[in-house]
């Protein structure tokens, strides 16, 4: 391994890591939003929307991200919707992640005893107020491990962004290998940067999990 090569590649990977993190964060944020809406719609069994959400969850979880990206990147322009590769990446991640996040939220919502909901109702809270102030805070604390696993999974899935010509970490590594045959250095930096991104997320998650556990659950 050539230190000089590592040093010269470093800034390229830095830029690529920035893109991976930014698009990953945007995609995950949207995925959480989509997941929460789907989970809420299914929790209250709102007719029609509930079935749509179930269909969506199955489709998003049972198709590979690469295929979803191809659909968005090559498919949508055919029906007149043109988007940038970045928007494609974020949309793809949100589509895939939404299904996973919905399931994570669902497991948490189901873990909250239904008498808690009735107790909130009996105090005059509306469905939305009960969900927001009583059920969701408890559900999220149950869902945190699953949500965290999803975040890490989705961040790793961003490696297929390179397929829609986004210059992320994977793209950069493949590019450098293709151009200069510097396989060892490129792969080393690739692994290094993924670890740099994912390890803190993982540690942060463990910390949040522990804090929430202590925050006073269990009667």
């Amino acid at each position, binding site marked *: 391994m050539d230190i000089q090569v590592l040093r010269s590649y470093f800034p390229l990977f830095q830029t690529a890591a920035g893109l991976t993190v930014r698009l990953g964060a945007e995609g995950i944020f949207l995925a959480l939003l989509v997941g929460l809406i789907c989970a809420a719609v299914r929790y209250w069994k709102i007719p029609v929307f509930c079935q749509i959400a179930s269909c969506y969850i199955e489709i998003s979880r049972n198709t590979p991200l690469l295929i979803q990206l191809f659909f968005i990147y090559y498919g949508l322009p055919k029906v007149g919707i043109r988007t940038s590769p970045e928007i494609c990446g974020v949309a793809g991640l949100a589509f895939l992640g939404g299904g996973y996040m919905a399931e994570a939220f669902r497991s948490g919502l189901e873990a909250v005893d239904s008498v808690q909901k*009735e107790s909130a109702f009996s105090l005059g809270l509306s469905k939305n107020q009960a969900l927001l102030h009583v059920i969701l805070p408890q559900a999220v604390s149950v869902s945190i491990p699953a949500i965290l696993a999803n975040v890490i999974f989705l961040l790793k899935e961003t490696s297929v962004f390179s397929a829609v010509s986004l210059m992320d970490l994977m793209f950069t590594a493949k590019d450098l290998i293709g151009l200069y045959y510097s396989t060892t250095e490129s792969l080393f930096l690739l692994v290094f940067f993924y670890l740099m991104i994912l390890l803190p997320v993982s540690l942060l998650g463990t910390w949040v999990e522990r804090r929430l556990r202590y925050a006073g659950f269990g009667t």
Partner: protein
Amino acid sequence: MAAELLKIEHLQKSYDSHVVLKNLSLFVDEGEVLVVVGPSGCGKSTLLRCINALEPVQGGRILLRGRDIHENEKNLPKLRQQIGMVFQSYELFPHKNIMDNIILAPIIVQKRKREEARQEAMELLARVGLENRANDFPRQLSGGQKQRVAIVRSLIMHPELLLFDEVTAALDPEMVREVLDVLLDLARQGRTMIIVTHEMQFARAVADRVVFLDKGKIVEESAPEAFFSRPQTERARRFLDTFSFETVRKSG
């Protein structure tokens, strides 16, 4: 004559084919304490849940001050503010401390000022002897303390009618008393209450009227003294007998 606060007419409630309440009619006057007793599975809890519209009903009407509670689902949150309910399992919100448990509904439902709600919460907590526990979390309290907080949490909404669903059934014997004392205090203040309980001594002390429910029907309805000393029906007599024991004499 006191005004009629709650009126139930020909209530029908069933789960699938299992009928729980059969053509049940009942009224509660303002300021009256109604105690509902009966064997488990007789429909007591279901009755309370119907009154608070936590259960859909299959027939009949439940009128609070003449207004059908099932008339409009949009009105339910408003209507439920007038009916306080305390559950057997307390159902405090575990992620909020005692104060926040109590002032959540006043603030977000009734849009009251936080300070004003806190002040009333402290007064009510003091009345049940828990003014120094406001910042604790539910898990730090004993069952009896949690149940007293649950009562305060429903009182702060100023409901016209209070429903108590076997509120001491999950408590250790020595904690039962502290909760029942709160209920007795409420009765003295002239609150309108429907109490479902298995504490017969307490029922006798607190009730203005006792309703004995069996298999979803009102079998007997009378003044507490009459009910407990001279039950009219064989069914009620047998039920009350289960609460008394004969002294065991060991032969040998």
